[in-house]
């Protein structure tokens, strides 16, 4: 019963201050739109970095002279790292496998036929759970007797370090940017609602003089803010959907054919989930914006 009344009051207020309500809605639209464009981009970049991180693997080459027990000991060591979670996967690549891979890579494999014997060492290809753990794996096996003395351990140290720095940067910059965006949106909506309340401060004063409690006055304004936030968010979602279908999807399918081998690993937030997040953000922006603003007007 009360909820219904507060809703009627909110709708009355929106009608009475149509221009200001439209301004608040447009503010919410812009804020949510920017947020909605930013979140998937941020998540795409992050996932692309993660995909690159997943490619940081460690090759542990095995000496041709290593005995079977020595190789088994090395395998056990790596399996041990897998059970404690440092290593995600260990693949054994035999000398024959290595040669076959080499043959596939070469444009003219006939040069290999000239070789008197197979010069390629066998190796364990080790996939770290986290790229940052590559150092741990290297440290664990670097003095192993089964290690090939010339090849040793190979992993893309510089790439890994650069990727890790990039990943951290993307993560923090993204969070800071989202924070600033949300803050700006709250302030903007708060400001707009303040106009609405300022236009009606005499009314609020009268309400207080006939004995309305602060919450009784506040609820309709909060609902007004939430409605503006929701409508703005809905409009932003529709616009984002248009851009996704019309621009991004078309571009992405074009990109996929050009970069077939790298593009597939990185993903981003799904549109329905994004919609839920944005609509929630819109409602929250409206409520918080009007809630903060009202505090100052209800003191007398």
């Amino acid at each position, binding site marked *: *019963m009360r909820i219904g009344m507060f809703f009627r009051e909110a709708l009355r207020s929106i009608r009475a201050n149509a221009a200001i309500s439209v301004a608040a809605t447009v503010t919410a639209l812009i804020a949510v739109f920017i947020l909605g464009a930013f979140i998937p981009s941020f998540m795409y970049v992050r996932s692309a970095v993660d995909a690159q991180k997943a490619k940081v693997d460690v090759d542990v080459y095995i000496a041709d002279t290593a005995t079977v027990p020595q190789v088994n000991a090395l395998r056990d060591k790596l399996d041990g790292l897998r059970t404690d979670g440092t290593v995600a996967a260990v693949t054994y690549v035999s000398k024959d496998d290595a040669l076959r891979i080499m043959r596939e890579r070469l444009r003219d494999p006939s040069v290999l036929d000239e070789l008197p014997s197979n010069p390629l060492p066998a190796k364990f290809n080790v996939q770290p759970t986290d790229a940052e753990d590559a150092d741990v794996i290297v440290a664990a096996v670097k003095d192993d007797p089964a290690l090939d003395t010339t090849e040793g351990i190979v992993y893309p140290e510089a790439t890994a370090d650069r990727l890790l720095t990039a990943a951290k940067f993307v993560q923090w910059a993204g969070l800071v940017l989202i924070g600033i965006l949300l803050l700006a949106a709250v302030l903007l909506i708060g400001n707009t609602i303040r106009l609405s309340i300022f236009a009606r401060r005499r009314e609020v004063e009268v309400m207080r*003089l006939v004995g*309305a409690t602060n919450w009784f006055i506040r609820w309709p304004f909060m609902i007004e803010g939430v409605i503006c936030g929701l409508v703005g968010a809905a409009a932003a979602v529709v616009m984002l959907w248009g851009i996704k279908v019309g621009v991004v999807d078309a571009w992405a399918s074009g990109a996929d054919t050009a970069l077939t081998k790298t593009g597939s690993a990185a993903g981003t937030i799904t549109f329905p989930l994004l919609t839920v997040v944005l609509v929630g953000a819109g409602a929250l922006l409206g409520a918080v914006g009007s809630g903060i603003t009202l505090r100052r007007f209800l003191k007398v």
Partner: protein
Amino acid sequence: MRDGPVGGRPTFTLVQVPEAPPSEEEMAPIFSTPVQDGKRREGDIFRPGPGPMVELRGVIKTYDGNSRGLAGVSLQIDTGEFVFLVGPSGSGKSTFIRLIIRELRPTSGAVIVGGRDLGELRRSKVPYLRRAIGCVFQDFRLLPDRTAAENVAYALQVTGHSQKEVRRRVPEILSLVGLDGMFDRLPRELSGGEQQRVSIARALVNHPRLRIADEPTGNLDPETSLGIMELLLRINRTGTTVLVATHDQHMVDHMQMRVIALDEGRLVRDEESAGYHEEPGEAMA
């Protein structure tokens, strides 16, 4: 009280109630105030008991700058009294009223309403104080985007009355103040006198213990003024305390009630059954 010097007038009913004065049954919506039974209503913050309804102890109110509101006023208004507050413009009448509804706080001294020291009243309790006081403001203070009926309904909704009760009581009280047929008009579509009556209806609809009117007859024709005074008087007879600030000399002389006179923020006269001006004979005494 009807047998006063202006008894020559045919009726004191409100202009829009043409036939007879409203019956007691019709007045029921504003007369059912439980004043004497000592029962506390929901949300009622007044302390039950025999004490005065309003008490001021050495109240000084100065505004920013040097302008004076009140300059040391002490007085009591007992439960069930009918009191006129008189004095020229700027004498402190409005300050007095705004202190009682705690729109203002005194610079020093204490304001006690219904046994509550307003200086100690928490901010969150102020709305409940205001519900217990029905106040008719000089400038009406109606909500401009609401019809007459919605303005009155708001005072009921604030106190949590059901929609059903609102629908029952609002037309009753608006008819009572003579606004039949104008329920759906916005304040700007009403005359000053009609707006005033909406304001009065709003102040009455919650059955407050204390009814305050600031210049309730300010812009009204004499007949309507008398109608409103008659209404306030009848409400007072049920035990409700009534405080009327006015400079309607004719009205005060006619009613012969207690008169509290302020001048430049000071209490200059407090007299039972008096007129607007001091009697020349008494001034000598």
